[in-house]
């Protein structure tokens, strides 16, 4: 404990005492379990009724659904948990005192980020028994699960650092929360729309539009060109690339990668790890900017 960040230690102690924490863990898991069980029922219960046989490969779809729901919960929870970290200190009038201590602005920010990530890790670990439903039939390995956990942690760092950046720049938590969610929307949806938009606009110049529309996504890939690399920063695409690696090409999640025929084979093969590394680099950049802003003498 001696070498842990003091802000992180204090935050952990406070979080553990809040009634909000167990309520959050409970609701999170109930929500996830309901979706998991429902997808089980739809896939196996209904399937059994109509065809009188089980498709064991459907477990991969269930895995995709459960992990997808968990990922969406992460997208929604991380900004909510981190956007108030610095602005909250400012509102509570505890920030000035903290800034006059021996702690550097970067240490303060790091402590805050670590505490948010810890809660997210706690949520992810607590949900493992629900994801383990998929192990009951097989097809998913422990390595896949570890990869998914790693992905969740990096997503928490990525979105958390963006939220902390806004928390440092905005004076009020409400403004910081709005900005964080907006930034997330830009990263997740607008980046995707931008890339697809660029592809479609390029196709409009082509003569045989009907041909291209029938293979829209595939054709887009060629037209988009280097714009596709913007999606390396999109966590949803990283999630799909993880699913592509785990449950294979040809599933619905893999369709987005039809657009990839404009990119280098290396990037296509290692999209998941490249995107995670890039997202970590962007996180560091946001943390650095936040600490610059937090420094009172800047």
């Amino acid at each position: 404990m001696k070498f842990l960040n003091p802000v992180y230690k204090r935050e952990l102690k406070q979080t553990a005492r809040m009634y909000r924490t167990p309520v959050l863990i409970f609701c999170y898991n109930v929500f996830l379990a309901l979706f998991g069980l429902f997808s089980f029922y739809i896939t196996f219960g209904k399937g059994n009724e109509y065809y009188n046989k089980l498709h064991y490969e459907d477990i991969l779809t269930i895995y995709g659904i459960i992990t997808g729901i968990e990922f969406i919960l992460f997208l929604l929870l991380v900004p909510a948990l981190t956007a108030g970290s610095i602005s909250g200190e400012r509102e509570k009038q505890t920030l000035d005192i903290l800034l006059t201590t021996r702690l550097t602005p970067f240490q303060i920010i790091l402590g805050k980020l670590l505490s948010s990530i810890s809660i997210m890790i706690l949520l992810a670990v607590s949900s493992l028994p629900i994801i383990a439903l998929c192990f009951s039939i097989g097809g998913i390995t422990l390595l896949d699960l570890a990869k998914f956990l790693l992905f969740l942690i990096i997503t928490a760092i990525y979105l958390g650092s963006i939220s902390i950046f806004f928390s440092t720049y905005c004076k009020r938590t409400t403004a910081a929360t709005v900005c964080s969610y907006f930034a997330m929307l830009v990263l997740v949806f607008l980046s995707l729309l931008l890339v697809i938009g660029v592809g479609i606009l390029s196709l409009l110049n082509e003569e045989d539009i009907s041909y291209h529309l029938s293979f829209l996504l595939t054709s887009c890939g060629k037209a988009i060109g280097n714009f596709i690399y913007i999606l390396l920063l999109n966590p949803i695409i990283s999630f799909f690339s993880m699913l592509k690696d785990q449950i294979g090409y040809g599933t619905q999640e893999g369709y987005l990668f039809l657009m990839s025929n404009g990119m280098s084979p290396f990037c296509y093969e290692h999209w998941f790890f490249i995107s995670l590394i890039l997202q970590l680099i962007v996180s560091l950049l946001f943390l650095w900017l936040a600490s610059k802003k937090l420094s009172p003498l800047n």
Partner: protein
Amino acid sequence: MLELKNLMKSYRKILALDHFSMSVEQGQLFGFVGPNGAGKTTTMKIIAGLISPDSGSMKLNGEDALKSPNLRKQKIGYMPDFFGVYDNLKVSEYMEFYLDIYGYYGKAAEKKSQELLDLVGLSAKKEMFVDHLSRGMKQRLCLARTLIHDPELLVLDEPASGMGPRSRKEIKEILRQLCGEGKTILISSHILNELAELCTNIGIIDSGILIMQGSIEEIKQQQKAANPIQLQLTQGTEEALKVLKEHPLASNIASKAGSINFSFSGEKEEEAQLLTALIYAGAKVSSFKRDEGSLEALFLRLTKNSELEDLEPEELESKVAYEVLKSSL
């Protein structure tokens, strides 16, 4: 110990500090007094390293403190006028958190925490949650927190504001004790009398300018020289008035039923010469004395009421933002 020279600070068009200079010597309990919005908090935040001045210099033990934030963090203990505490933390845990920041762990942290809580009289409350403490107790806890790294200079922004008389007395005792232990203390207030009975030296600030600085005795002496002289006569009022009207150092002469009040800008020697002249002119003087006046009267005379009197720096910024918005519409 601390030397501020020509500090300038403005929030957009509003000048908070205007060529502000001040010096605090080692071991002084320096009272920094001025009306609300005079620039006290801005000055203190600059000293603590929370705000950068637009220009000017700040030296701490002869070293340029503006270029060395670490020096400030090491030598200065800052207690803001308004501060919050963390929810769900006990008094002992609050201290533990800050002790951790300064590298105190385990037994060493416990010992230091006990020592500081004893000093501020909060040992019995260490298992209480911080947000359940009274304002006075929170102030004392914050003072204990300020002392963790044993700073040479304590910068306390209105530490007794909002406190009851008992808590005020207690905090004054603690400050006297700390000063006796060799700490230099810079303490602000907008009530001069409150500081006069505690501090060895006083600086008066108004509209971002230090208008007076010195020991309490020096300030009282300056105040006295500016007070009117009361002259009581049993006979010869006319003669006395004639002498006073002709005297170059006497002014604002008012006479009423054998009593004359007048301003006199001379020193003790000139006062004695004037008294001799009055007696020589035929006035029978039964009493000749300067009005003692009060520090509060001096403070009110020295500090002008400005439009921004009741504004703190944050409010000043809001006002600036409002003015900008108003002018753009």
